[in-house]
């Protein structure tokens, strides 16, 4: 069965330090992975998707099929990066595609 694991509930770093939010998945098909973010008092929103291979707000994520991972990275954390980050796996079930979310990691960037 498909599953998304985010091992860290909380990650605290200082401003300017590198950040890596871990995400591992299990899925028998070809994975489509996303990172969603929820800033304080805001809605859950898409941060980036692996298929776009893009950098958003300085964040990147590389899909590693061998390690079944999709870790989110940023070289220099900013205070405004503090938020809840969810890794999500898209799979096809029924007549539509669905998302499975991890439990989320709270990133706290200290000044």
């Amino acid at each position, binding site marked *: 069965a498909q599953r998304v694991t985010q091992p860290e509930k909380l990650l605290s770093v200082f401003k300017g330090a590198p950040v890596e939010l871990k995400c591992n998945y299990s899925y028998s098909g070809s994975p489509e992975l996303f990172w969603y973010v929820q800033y304080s008092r805001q*809605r859950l929103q898409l941060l980036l998707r692996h298929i776009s291979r893009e950098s958003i707000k300085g964040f990147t994520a590389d899909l590693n099929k061998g390690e079944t991972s999709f870790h989110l990275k940023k070289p220099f954390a900013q205070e405004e990066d503090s938020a809840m980050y969810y890794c999500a796996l898209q799979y096809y079930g029924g007549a539509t595609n669905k998302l499975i979310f991890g439990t989320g990691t709270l990133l706290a960037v200290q000044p």
Partner: protein
Amino acid sequence: EADIYQTPRYLVIGTGKKITLECSQTMGHDKMYWYQQDPGMELHLIHYSYGVNSTEKGDLSSESTVSRIRTEHFPLTLESARPSHTSQYLCASSETGGSYNEQFFGPGTRLTVL
């Protein structure tokens, strides 16, 4: 302005009451979803719809029901609320077509059943 609306944002209600959580979107999306999220836990898909008059149960079993009579409206109903229903409920929508579609989320309804 294209958006997803959820009402109420907060609801505290007694056991046994019937409640309806409203979700409407002006995004023009065909697909809509309901997720349930307990504090500190992942979001679980409880219902989805890929168009008018189509509803399916999600991965997490739920005692709630949904309807999709209009494209823009996807209400969730609990016939008899219980304390175990206390949770946050998130509504989302996405476009049809393409190999993957970003889901857009509403602000959520935080339900407390006493």
